[in-house]
């Protein structure tokens, strides 16, 4: 009887069934899509993070930058290129000068590498690696030769500094000057560390990676896309701080779209020597024994190294910027609220329609009670109807949701992600006056959003359909159970 009655009721009241089911279907489709997009965005975020920080990295440690002391031209001050009178080479009335600097980014502070031992000694740390993040800036200038209009004797340094007759040489032949500044990022890392750190998440596309025996030698591994821009291949040399390095390998991020952490990778000890930062590092990458240890390790490192900034993957995720981060925010805020509101509306529609259905069927249920149907039997009937309406909505909703996900994956929207690791602007003072330039570009990458369909999303949808149906059914059933059997005798007015 239960099944017959249920079937007849749903088929006989198609409009009510359709409205409740459609409301439920819309809500469930939305929940599925929002949920799936949200995990797609998270996936993209972890892809970006993995390519920048390495796969196994749970925690990074860096020094909290201190404000530079007034008047102190330290490593973090503006970069000055000073040229003496004898610097440069002169041909055809033009003096060309070139200088390269390898230094720590302005936003970064280096610290004693002894911190690595401290970190390695902390409980539940399985691996730790220290790196020195530097940027190499090359200044090339061409300026008029100072002595061409002079008396014919080579000027002494003092004479040149004192000035002379107006210059006529230079690249434009009229005493003008031209300067160019080129910079790229250099990461010094211990070639012996392979488990954790920036190079743990990259794919070798050509040559070889850095090896233990590379310590102390002038070899470099390049980010493949940087190598393309700089027109460098394996076997070429790249000048870092005026020293030639042999390019031994090219790497790309494991996920095709993201960039790697740095343009150039060289052995840590060489980087320290070249930059004059002996036994100094800028970042420590830490791998935890298990994800449950991360909080403890973070606390312990902060206690052991009070000046340090300790970031977990969760903190790192918030450093991903760009449209990926906007998408993430959008999904988290708008998507969540929208699906909650639509879900609440759908539940409300289901409840209201069930209640109005029970009210309309007062005489029907009164009659059934009068001929001996128990309350339980009637409640089961009402709840069963709502549950099936919810489930129909659930099935339709899952179908619509899956189609929505399919459409998103076919459209495959591209998101740009920047990881805010190396954003700093450097002001440089040169002979031609002060000018500013963005010293290091933020690492940006394009990620194609791929939305995964997971079993859990489907289960959540089915669960919501059941909950919605049962909620409406429980409320409707409760109303029906309170009807008096004497309602059956009410004359039809």
């Amino acid at each position: 009887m239960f099944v017959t009655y249920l079937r007849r009721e749903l088929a006989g009241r198609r409009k009510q069934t359709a409205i409740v089911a459609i409301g439920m279907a819309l809500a469930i489709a939305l929940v599925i899509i929002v949920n799936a997009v949200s995990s797609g965005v998270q996936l993209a975020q972890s892809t970006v993070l993995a390519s920048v920080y390495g796969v196994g990295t749970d925690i990074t440690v860096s020094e909290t930058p201190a404000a530079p002391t007034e008047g102190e031209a330290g490593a973090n001050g503006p970069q000055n290129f000073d040229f003496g009178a004898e610097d440069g080479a002169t041909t055809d009335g033009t003096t060309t000068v070139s200088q390269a600097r390898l230094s720590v980014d302005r936003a970064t502070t280096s610290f004693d590498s002894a911190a690595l031992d401290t970190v390695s000694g902390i409980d539940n740390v399985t691996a730790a690696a220290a790196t020195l993040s530097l940027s190499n800036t090359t200044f090339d200038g061409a300026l008029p030769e100072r002595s061409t209009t002079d008396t014919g004797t080579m000027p002494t340094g003092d004479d040149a500094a004192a000035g002379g007759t107006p210059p006529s040489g230079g690249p434009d032949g009229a005493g003008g000057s031209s300067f160019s500044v080129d910079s790229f990022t250099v990461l010094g890392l211990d070639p012996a560390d392979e488990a954790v750190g920036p190079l743990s998440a990259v794919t070798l596309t050509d040559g070889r990676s850095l090896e233990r025996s590379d310590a102390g030698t002038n070899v470099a591994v390049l980010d493949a896309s940087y190598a393309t821009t700089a027109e460098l291949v394996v076997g070429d040399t790249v000048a870092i701080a005026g020293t030639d390095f042999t390019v031994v390998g090219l790497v790309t991020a494991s996920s095709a779209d993201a960039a790697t952490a740095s343009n150039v990778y060289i052995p840590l000890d060489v980087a320290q020597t070249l930059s004059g930062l002996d036994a100094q590092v800028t970042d420590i990458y830490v791998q935890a024994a298990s994800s449950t240890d991360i909080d403890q390790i973070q606390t312990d490192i902060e206690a052991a190294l009070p000046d340090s900034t300790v970031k977990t993957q969760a903190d790192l995720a918030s450093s991903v910027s760009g449209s990926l981060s906007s998408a993430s925010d959008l999904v988290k805020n708008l998507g969540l609220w929208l699906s909650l509101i639509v879900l609440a509306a759908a539940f409300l529609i289901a409840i209201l329609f069930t209640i109005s259905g029970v009210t309309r069927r007062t005489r029907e249920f009164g009659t059934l009670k009068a001929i001996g149907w128990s309350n339980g039997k009637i409640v089961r009937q009402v709840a069963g109807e709502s549950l099936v309406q919810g489930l129909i909505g659930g099935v339709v909703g899952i179908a619509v949701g899956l189609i929505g996900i399919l459409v998103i994956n076919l459209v495959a929207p591209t998101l740009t992600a920047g990881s805010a690791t190396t954003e700093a602007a450097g002001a440089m003072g040169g002979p031609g006056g002060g000018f500013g330039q963005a010293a290091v570009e933020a690492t940006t990458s394009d990620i194609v959003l791929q939305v995964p369909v997971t079993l859990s999303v489907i289960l959540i949808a089915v669960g919501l359909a059941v909950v919605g149906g049962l909620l409406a059914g429980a409320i409707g059933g409760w109303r029906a159970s309170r009807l008096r059997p004497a309602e059956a005798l009410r004359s039809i007015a």
Partner: protein
Amino acid sequence: MYQLTNVTKKYDQGKRSVTALNKVTLSIPDGQMVAIQGPTGGGKSTLLQMLGALDRPTEGTVELGTSNLSKLGDGPLGKIRAQEIGFVFQGFNLIPTLTAQENVETALAPLGIPAAERTARATAALASVGLGERGSHLPAELSGGQQQRVAIARALVKEPAVLLADEPTGNLDEQTRDEIMELLEGLWRDRGLTLIVVTHDSAVAKRAQRRLLIKQGVVKEIS
């Protein structure tokens, strides 16, 4: 056998209280056909609710056989209705989405009767009211008289001891009214039911063995 003793039923309507039945004492032997007449609002339906275990009196006792209906809870009252009492209503009260056959089967659903037996008994009940061919029709596809026959089949399929009818011919024309009354009378005679019919219609009431008049909640015998 019904035994009503000092039955009073009051309805609270806000501050006012309506006395629908006022100290009614009445006994109805098994197998009797009783007509209940009276002006509108006199308390006919209220009395039928007491007899049909649909409601409990405010005061007094209602006994059906050995059961005291005024003391039983909702569950036991429901069981008595399911087993002992058949109802026929003025408005037919069929479930609009169920077929005639299924409507008759609803009366057997609370009795835990297996599906096959349910179907057979419902088919037989429909045949006994002259609707053997109409089992698969929805109520909306049947005339008023046919709907009331389905309702009578639903009331009788469980073979109750008592059949209660509240204005069973109130919505029917004269011709159909007589057909339905003849059907009810025939069933009463054949099955030895107690048949209690509430009616405005003297033509209907005249067929009964015994006639009661209810005015302002007070019952009088009409001889």
